[in-house]
Structures are given as structure tokens and as C-alpha cells.
């Protein structure tokens, strides 16, 4: 801190510290802490706040356990987010590998630009594009019928499959770039050498490319899972009663059920889930926080 003061002088240091303190305290730490505090209190009318009933209780958390519908939606959200993460990884790995190791340097800027452009486009708009494609009379149904794969159109919108397909599309770029960056730093000679030693392609990927790309894989998976589990736009647009997402339950507690305390408890559980997933990934891939947040 002395170093900061010596470098920036008292006036500037005060401004810097004040802005940082405002951010950390008012926008990050206190909201999170008080959300937890809030989730541990019962929902009371304003008159009873601070009264004898305003005590800490785990009731809001027990609700999730007892409510079988909410519980199954929670588990389904985890499972579907994991599935989205796995599919995204499978789709992106060859692309990232091709761009990082195979593509000619000349065509690379164009390929990157082609990836960057959809990345810049609003998540909601990309979801909306799939809304049109998945519509009952939409192009996908039409194509499937025309190809003879279906006898008649099926309901794609509102099905779990529709939500997952949409999410893969929307979050795919959060997987491609970390993978690409990680694989790109691998020396091509290592692959050549392994090949020279008679190693098959599968073994090269399993023993050389994937171990090298670990930090990128971790980052890609963390981002994708976090975005999927916390997604509201995609299930809201593409989902239906059979494919409800945990975030929708939370939203309803706030704006339809009017029970903020309950909603805060659910939100905290979602946060714990995401933090747990991050820690799991960091454990599996043995990477630190500085590798993740870039």
C-alpha cells in the first residue's frame, strides 16, 4: 500500500482506493453476503421485519429438498448443463485443433474473424435465430420431412432437446477460443516428433495435445457450464413446460411468487453449484485462478 501511495501521490491514491472499495464492497461482496443473509430469513410482510419471527432459519433451503418438482428441475439443469458442456467440447475440439495446428497461417485471420463475428452478436439474437429454425413450421422440420426422416413435423420448440441444441449454439464460442489459445501454444514439432516415433493420431491427442491444452479445456468447460446453468434467455425463449430451467424457478420466486427470500436461497444454491464446478475443474485439470480469469 505504501508503494501505491508513493507512486500515485495522496490525491490519486484516494480516488483509486475509493473507486475500488466502492466496486468490491458495494457491488461484489456486500450484495453476495446479504443475499445469503436474506436467504436465511423467512419472507415477512414489512410490519413484521425485525420482529420476533425475523430469525435465521434454513427453511428456504429445505423447500428445495421437499419440493420434488423443483428438485428434479435443479437436477435436470445440472445434467443438461453438463451435457451442453460435453457436446460443446466435442464439437469445438476438432475446430480449435485445426485452427491452431493445421490451418495455414494465411487463412487464419479470416477463420478467426469468422468465429469472432457471431461471438460479438447478442446472445438473445442468436437464441432467437434458433427459435425460428425450431418452429413447428420452421425450416428444420421442413427439411427433415423433405428428407424423409420424419413423416410429419414434430414439436421442437419447448422440448429439452431444443433447449440443449440452442445452448450449444449460443455458448460454443466460449469453448472454441480458450481451446484454440491453449492448443496454439503447443509446439508443432512435438506432434511431428510423436508422429515420427510411430504414434497414432488418437494417441497423439490423448498423450500430447490434450495434456498441453488442459488450462484451455478447464476454462472452456467452466465458462460453458457456468453460462448454461445460469442461462435465462435460452430456456425462456426455446423452452417449454417440459424443459424448465432452474433460473426460471428463481425468477418466478422473485416476480411471480413474490418470495424474495426463497428466490435468494435458490440463487445461492445455483452459485454454490457453479463454484463447486469451477473448483472441480481446477482440481481435475490442476490449474489456478490466474489461468482461469483471462
Amino acid at each position, binding site marked *: 500500500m505504501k508503494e*501505491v501511495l508513493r*507512486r*500515485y*501521490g495522496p*490525491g*490519486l491514491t484516494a*480516488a483509486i482506493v475509493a*473507486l*475500488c472499495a*466502492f*466496486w*468490491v464492497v*458495494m457491488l*461484489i461482496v456486500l*450484495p453476495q453476503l*446479504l*443475499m445469503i443473509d*436474506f436467504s436465511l430469513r423467512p419472507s415477512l410482510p414489512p410490519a413484521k421485519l425485525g420482529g420476533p419471527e425475523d430469525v435465521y432459519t434454513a427453511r428456504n433451503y429445505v423447500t428445495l429438498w421437499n419440493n420434488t418438482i423443483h428438485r428434479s428441475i435443479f437436477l435436470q439443469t445440472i445434467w443438461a448443463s453438463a451435457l451442453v458442456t460435453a457436446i460443446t467440447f466435442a*464439437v469445438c475440439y*476438432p*475446430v480449435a485443433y*485445426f485452427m491452431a495446428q*493445421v490451418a495455414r497461417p494465411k487463412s487464419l485471420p479470416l477463420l478467426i*474473424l*469468422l*468465429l469472432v*463475428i*457471431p461471438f*460479438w*452478436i447478442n446472445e*438473445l*439474437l442468436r437464441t*432467437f*435465430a*434458433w427459435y*425460428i429454425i425450431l*418452429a413447428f*413450421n420452421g*425450416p428444420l422440420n421442413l427439411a427433415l420431412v423433405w428428407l424423409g426422416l420424419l413423416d410429419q413435423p414434430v414439436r421442437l420448440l419447448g422440448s429439452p432437446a431444443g433447449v440443449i441444441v440452442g445452448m450449444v*449454439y449460443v455458448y*460454443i464460442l466460449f469453448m472454441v477460443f480458450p481451446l484454440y489459445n491453449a492448443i496454439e501454444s503447443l509446439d508443432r514439432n512435438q506432434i511431428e516428433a510423436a508422429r515420427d516415433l510411430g504414434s497414432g493420431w488418437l494417441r497423439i491427442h490423448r498423450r500430447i495435445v490434450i495434456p498441453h491444452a488442459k488450462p484451455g479445456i478447464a476454462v472452456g468447460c467452466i465458462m460453458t457450464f457456468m*453460462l448454461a446453468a445460469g*442461462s*435465462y*434467455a435460452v430456456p*425462456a*425463449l426455446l423452452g417449454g413446460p417440459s424443459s424448465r430451467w432452474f*433460473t426460471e424457478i*428463481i*425468477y418466478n420466486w*422473485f416476480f411471480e411468487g413474490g418470495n*424474495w427470500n426463497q*428466490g*435468494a436461497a435458490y*440463487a445461492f444454491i445455483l*452459485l454454490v453449484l*457453479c463454484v463447486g464446478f469451477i473448483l472441480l475443474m481446477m482440481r481435475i485439470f490442476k490449474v489456478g*485462478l490466474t489461468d*482461469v*480469469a483471462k
Partner: protein
Amino acid sequence: MTADRIRSSLVTAYMVLFFGYLFLPLIIMTAATFNTSRFPTVAPWMGFTLDWFTVLWNDRAMWTALWTSFLIGVGVIVLAVPIGLSAALLLYRLHSKARTVLYAVMVSPLLTPGVIIGISTLVFWDRWLDVKGGIFLTVIAQSSFIAAYAMLLFMARLQRFDLTLEEAALDLGASHLQVFRRITLPYLMPAILSAAFIAFLQSFENYNTTIFVRGLDTTLTVYIASKVRTGLTPAVNALSVIMIGLTILGAFVYELARRRELARQESAKRRAVQADMALAGSAL
């Protein structure tokens, strides 16, 4: 040899499929804008029209939402860019354990789902400080994670900063404020511009956080989402097409500016080396 060729054509096919997958939905959505059909679709094709742009133009709710989004975006620039800059400057000078902790806290919003940022902001500001949802609270909520993006941008640029420049200015008698204004800030200017650009875009596009803190205000993304569910017409496509067009334009300009800046740095370095070589030659 042939195995290689088969493999390489398979890979090429996969790449074509992948990029098709990336762009086809956007193309279909765009095409649907120009279809006369009341529901946005490409088949059946009922005739080319530009009417949906007119419909959009005459939609007052859209204009209101656009204005709200714009205000919030400007607010986020004003709040998140200075915060990100301060945080980067602070972390740049700290070398203790506190730095690690602070860094972890500051990047944590990037690893927190957007809905949770919205919820925690709403609960804290509404229930404890009695600030109701609306434009101001949306700026607050969005800034909490957009500031982290800005911070990472500034940290990347500061990494290449030559500290002796600040020392030299100080040594020549400049006050700390003068050093900051004349040396540090001009050096960071490119990063400030890109941080502002990215902050605005992130804010403009945000949905997951915004829905919790918007109160009764409607941003453009909220407007689009509600239109999709109630009263969807190709006018929404028209809006999407315009936004995509602007985004692509923005992305191009941003990329171009970034590459030009890189090229400029390279050529400056080259010129200096050439001048040195010329002088070394003339000294002999």
C-alpha cells in the same frame, strides 16, 4: 498418403459444416425479415418485402427501449471504465498476498452467473438501501462484472508499460497528478477506448442480469424477448438484422483499430532500429 488425404478432406468437410452451423441460423433469421409472412419464417416464401422495417420504425415501444439501453450503456461506461482502470492501477502496484485475494474477488463476477449478479444486486440495494429497480440499478448491476472485463484489458496493457517513464516525469518535477494525466493516461488511451467500446456492447446485449434489476424499465433485449413470446412478427427480425449489422460493423472497426495499433507499434520499432543503424554507420 491416401489415408492422409481422406483425413484432410474429412477435416475440411467438418470445418465447412461447423461454419455453416455458425452462420446458417443467422442467415435464415435475416432472410425471414424480407418475407411477407406474418410469422418470421423462410418457408413458405410469400414474397419479398421491406415493410417490416417500417413496422419497426413506427413502434414507439422499441424506441423507448432503445433509448433506455443507450442510457444504461453510457452509464456503464461512466462507472465501469474508471473502476476497471483504478483496479488495474491498484493491482499493478500491489505485490503482497493482499493482491492475490483482491484479484480473486475482482474477477469473481466473471465466474458468477449473470442472474446471480442481478439477484444479489437487487436484494442488497432494494432491501438494504431502498434503491428500487430501474436504470440506475441496472447500471450498478452490469458494472459489477463489466468493470472486471475493463480491468483485465487495462492490466494487459499495463504489463507492457515502461515504469521509468513515470519516474522520469516525476524526476522532472511533475506532480503525481501531472504524471498520471500526461504520461500514464495517454499511454492507456487505446485501452480506455476499447474498454469503453466493450463495456457499452456488453451492457447493450445483457439480458440475464438486467431482467432482475430493470424494475419497470425495458431495455432493447428485454423488449425483443417479450416480443418473441407475445406478438412475434418479422419486425423483430428487422431489429435483429439492424443490430447484427451494427455489431459486425463495430467488430470490424474494433479489429481494424487493434491491428492498426499493432502495426503502428511495429513500424515505430523498425524505424528506430533503422535510425540506429544509420547513425552507427555514420559514426565510423
